[in-house]
């Protein structure tokens, strides 16, 4: 109950923030590009593709770049709401349990991630439907909603670890640039480790889990990566909460 009250307070703070605009713009970007491309299809364009495949293949740009980078940015923006407006003092002197404040922040981050994934699916659907009206016969059959939802839940689980690390970093650093810089650099290391260095250690690297989840060579291990991601989230959230509780000067 207390957590719900804190969560409501956190979601109210998001009104008119950059996070919301970023969520919609970020979700619309990929499908819009694909829509523009499909308006004038090249002669060898594959026709009659199933709707389910369209949605499943559509999550690739999300898993590789959009979702990790969006998570890095939103994590920082969520904390900046408090740092920029010196809101921590008011939050911490209000009658909320520390754990509720902490979890409400993390849950609001994940509400934004869900909103992003949902908006992306909607944009994929709307743009594909519009393309179908202009170029009939591009898509075929009925979408398998369950398979699409499972695939998206998997993406969400794979980003859990990264989100917990970024949450911890953004909570520690008052500055906006540093957490974003660290996040982008850590994410950029993933494709380098996978394609450039072909390092095996990448399968333990939380910033790479969403990418590994869509790569043909690694897809088979997706459940293992999900467990690694959950374990990373538990470890880093615990550290973050301990620091949040014991830090001498609380913002």
């Amino acid at each position, binding site marked *: 109950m207390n957590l719900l*009250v*804190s969560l*409501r*307070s956190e979601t*109210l*703070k998001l*009104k*008119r*923030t950059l996070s919301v605009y970023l969520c919609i713009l970020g979700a619309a970007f990929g499908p819009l590009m694909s829509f523009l491309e499909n308006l004038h299809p090249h002669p060898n364009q594959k026709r009659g593709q199933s709707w389910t495949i369209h949605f499943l293949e559509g999550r690739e740009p999300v898993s590789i770049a959009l979702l990790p980078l969006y998570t890095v940015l939103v994590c920082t923006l969520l904390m900046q*709401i408090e740092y*920029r*407006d*010196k*809101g*921590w*003092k*008011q*939050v*911490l*002197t*209000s*009658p*909320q*349990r520390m754990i509720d404040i902490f979890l409400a922040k993390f849950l609001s981050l994940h509400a934004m991630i869900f909103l992003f994934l949902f908006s992306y699916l909607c944009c994929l659907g709307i743009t594909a439907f519009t393309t179908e009206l202009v170029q009939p016969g591009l898509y075929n059959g009925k979408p398998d909603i369950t398979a699409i939802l499972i695939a998206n839940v998997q993406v969400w689980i794979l980003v859990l670890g990264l989100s917990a690390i970024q949450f911890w970093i953004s909570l520690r650093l008052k500055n906006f640039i540093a957490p974003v810089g660290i996040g982008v650099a850590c994410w950029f290391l993933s494709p380098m480790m996978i394609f450039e260095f072909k390092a095996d250690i990448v399968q333990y690297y939380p910033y790479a889990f969403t990418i590994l989840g869509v790569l043909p060579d690694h897809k088979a291990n997706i459940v293992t990566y999900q467990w690694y991601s959950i374990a990373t989230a538990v470890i880093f959230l615990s550290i973050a909460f301990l620091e949040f509780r*014991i830090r*001498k*000067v*609380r913002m």
Partner: protein
Amino acid sequence: MKNTIIRTNGLSYKYAKAVQTLSDINLEVAQGAVYGFLGPNGSGKTTTLSLLLGLLNNQQGTIEIFGKNIRQHRMDILKRIGSLIEVPSLYGHLTAKENLEVYRPIYGVKSDRIKEVLKTVGLEDTGKKTAKKFSLGMKQRLAIALALLPNPELLILDEPTNGLDPNGIIELRQLIKMLNEQHGMTILISSHILSEVEKTVSHLGIIYKGKMLFQGTLPELHSFQQRDAKLCINTSDNEMAYRVLGTYQPERTEDTILVHCSGNNEIATINRLLIQNNLDVYLLRPQENNLEQLFINLTTTAS
């Protein structure tokens, strides 16, 4: 006898090992009091208030609010407190109403309370204007509205007049009086300007370099001030005046002479003495006992 709302015992705090920010602070705020917590910038006021509100972890000493320990009963205590620490903590992208709405369910108050507090601070007509477009004074008033939202029994205001124009300061003074007299709110208000709070407060605590120099009622402070009052004199010949007033142990400043004096009769005697010695008296007034001077006096007394 009235209950004590805030009681600290031997409160000490260090930000760094070598620097003792607070040392043996024994604060006592009675129920229904308007307690002025005075001290120059950097004296430890905000640190003390942050400790009271649990923003800083207590290192040494005890803090009791409403007779309970803040660490063990944090939630119960904070439900009954409204606070404003240093600068207003407002969300710039939200309107005044939305800023209050963020905290309304946390304090468990009804929606009508938002209208009430906005009216109290004169911000009921700000409509869709977001807080970042507010003037500093408006922000300060909104932060006070936020502190009043839970209809608290104890209101803690740290330098609430920062950014307020003279009119705003007078309005705040009236608001504090009204909240104290009509709603029985206990108010702890910090400031570095004595004249700003002495018209409002019933009790005072003076902190200097992390130590409490004085704690008591306003009349007690006034009697201390009078006991230590000095007369400021300027005459046509200050050298001669200095010699004439030798028995009063005068002190020389650039343009004036300062002498200790203990009342109106003594002032008249000094004036007569100067005139009898053919000195023209240009200035004869009590030395302004501003906070800085008071600190010096208190520090001297303490040492």
